[in-house]
């Protein structure tokens, strides 16, 4: 005599057979529902990627450089040169700014440096 489990297995086997013989209208509709659900999942994943755009871009960047070592070395050298150039420009601007600051902070008024008589007096004074 079959026990409960064997009876259940026999019944389930017949149910499987029934499920495998579904009408094509039903299987088509199920397939469409499945595609719709998968589309929702993909849409959700795209939205999540949008929210984590920075992290995603950083990951892509790192992955790319990990796989292209020669290119990454050249890119790093170019980046270093660019940074050096920008830093030099910045330094020069600051130096000019400091010159102006010196004139403005001086005890002499700025107009004195434009006065020809002042320059004459300054030369005579220095010769003495």
């Amino acid at each position: 005599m079959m026990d409960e489990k064997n009876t259940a297995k026999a019944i389930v086997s017949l149910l499987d057979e029934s499920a495998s013989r579904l009408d094509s209208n039903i299987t088509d509709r199920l397939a469409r529902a499945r595609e719709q659900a998968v589309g929702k999942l993909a849409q959700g994943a795209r939205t999540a990627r949008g929210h984590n755009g920075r992290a995603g871009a950083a990951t892509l960047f790192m992955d790319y450089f990990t796989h292209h070592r020669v290119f990454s070395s050249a890119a790093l050298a170019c980046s270093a040169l660019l940074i050096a150039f920008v830093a030099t420009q910045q330094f020069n601007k600051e130096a000019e700014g400091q010159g102006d600051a010196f004139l403005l902070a001086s005890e002499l008024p700025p107009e004195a440096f434009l006065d020809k008589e002042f320059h004459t007096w300054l030369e005579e004074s220095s010769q003495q």
Partner: protein
Amino acid sequence: MATAQELSDFLTQVERRAFKQTVYAVRDDHAALDIVQDAMLKLAEKYSSRPASEYPMLFQRILQNTMRDYWRRQKTRNLWTTLFSSFGSSDEDDDERDPLEVLGSEDTSDTPDTQVERSQTIAIIESALQELPARQREAFVLRYWEDMDVAETAVAMGCSQGSVKTHCSRAVRALAVILEKNGISREELGKSGVER
């Protein structure tokens, strides 16, 4: 997080069984298709971050809940049109109508002979499944058709493991009795059923 391919593979694997088990519950192909579609979309929308290994349990819970929502709507709709709606008394309690209690009054004049074809056997089984109380059918389907263990079935049904065992035992016994009443012995059933 599961990929779209994993979700597609999972749904391909379960969609037919999900449809059939929903038909047994709601007895309406169109409603069953809507319910399965809703369950698929809910799984994709709300549980996309979960690993694919959790999908069987999650999908079954969603499917059962969607079926219950359908029953509630039907119950409300039928309240004023009929006194005895199809699922009017089928709440989730254990004291549901047991088909064994009414088997004696069933018509046995259409008992098939011992050479009944498999399709007829399947039709009888499906009809018997529809007659089972909702919780017994649910337990049987999850435990044996979805091949969940007792603990998983209990979690999916939101009840104790003891209740699952009781529901399964009653369901199998009721089905076996119905089949025998229709002239299908357990031995014949064993021959027609292929071991999984």
